């Protein structure tokens, strides 16, 4: 009875599509090239010339609305700054503080996140996928855009300040059966990472500004440390990065 209604090639095609949906590249992330086109900076600085850093505030907005900065973001920011090795110690407001008269650099970070989930488009496309009995699921991608603009204010112990800005954005593309909350989290993480890297790269270029004068006597050997932005992935051209299913929980 079934064979009278559905031909074998048709059934085979449906099975192939179903397998394809389950095994193929069902989601990927495009990360736009950062606006900062400067080459990755690095420098060698005297260890004793480094000063402590105090992360005073992180202000976060989400599509224009202020939100409490997630703890994971605070850790990510502090970790990124720490990994540059430009500062001797790292403090965060609300935790252990440097002593009052200690020379330090105070950091204030402002993050404006823009989220465009293409909700209306997703709803219509979802309706189309459902109406097609899911046969169009492997052919109709859904999109989620995320952008971040960061402004960093760094105030030196003597009151001099420097401002840095950076912008990064990316898109997650996925098919219905490849949707996963982790895809969106990875997109946000990668955009934030790229933006932070760009920002800190600018800071590294100004590294002499954040160091105290040479405190070492001329005849004493000076210990040095290499400072720079530790990048998790090469930047340059936009990345089209398929995420393997092994990343899924």
């Amino acid at each position, binding site marked *: 009875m079934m064979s009278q209604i559905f031909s074998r090639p048709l059934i085979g095609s449906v099975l192939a599509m179903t397998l394809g949906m389950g095994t193929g590249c069902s989601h990927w992330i495009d990360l736009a090239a950062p606006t900062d086109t400067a080459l990755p900076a690095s420098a060698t600085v005297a260890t004793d010339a480094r000063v402590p850093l105090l992360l005073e505030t992180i202000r976060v907005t989400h599509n224009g609305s202020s939100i409490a900065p997630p703890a994971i973001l605070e850790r990510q920011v502090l970790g990124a700054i720490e990994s540059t090795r430009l500062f001797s110690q790292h403090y965060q407001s609300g935790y252990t503080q440097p002593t009052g008269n200690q020379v330090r650099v105070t950091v204030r970070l402002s993050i404006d996140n823009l989220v465009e989930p293409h909700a209306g488009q997703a709803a219509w*496309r979802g309706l189309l*996928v459902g109406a097609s009995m899911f046969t169009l699921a492997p052919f109709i991608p859904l999109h989620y855009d995320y952008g971040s603009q960061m402004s960093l204010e760094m105030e030196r112990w003597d009151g001099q300040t420097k401002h840095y800005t950076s912008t990064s954005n990316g898109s997650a593309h*996925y098919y219905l059966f490849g*949707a996963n*909350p982790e*895809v969106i989290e990875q997109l946000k993480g990668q955009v934030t990472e790229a933006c932070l890297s760009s920002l800190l790269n600018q800071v590294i270029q100004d590294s002499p500004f954040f160091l105290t004068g040479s405190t070492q006597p001329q005849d004493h050997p000076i210990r040095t440390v290499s400072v720079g932005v530790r990048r998790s992935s090469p930047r340059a051209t936009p990345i089209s990065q398929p995420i393997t299913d092994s990343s899924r929980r």
Partner: protein
Amino acid sequence: MPFLARILTALALMSPLITAYSHAADGSPTITVGTQEVGLTAGYMLPHRLTRDHTTKQQGVAFMPSWMMTITDPISDGWFRGQVSIGAEMVYIQFQEPFLTHGLGFTPKIKYTFVGLDRIRPYAEFAGGPFWTDLAGKIPEESSRFNFVLTAGFGVSYFLTDRAALNIGYRFHHISNAGTRYPNLGLNASLPFGGFSFFF
């Protein structure tokens, strides 16, 4: 009806288990893009004879296992702020009246869930798809066993935990064969239902 009583008893017995689990993992539900939902819903179909030509009082229990995928973040602001999810549902109906017969269907489904009330989340849903039943041919309204089922309804999810919800609601059910054979008057019914959903 004894069969329905057994179903309702089973659901009632499952409720304390879920409630106990809720104390272990308390938290607000966070449903994001890509969150999947599997659910099991059971209900009892009650007939509506909309014209004088409708004579069959079909009724029986219905089971509806389902799978859904959330495809949007909450849309808009205000009381209608909500999320869209799409998915599919199997529909099994055991008609107990007028004859002990069966029906089985597969329906893609779209759901809009209002998220403004935190743990209590009303929703509206629509589903439609092919439906096979051996009741057809034995009643004057329907002649072919291959039919389509269309349902539209609303319900409320109460999140017992951030990952488990209790659902109750109402659906209007329509079964007909889209004019592929005659007679094709269609079977209409109300379907109050209850069930559970798990999100992951």
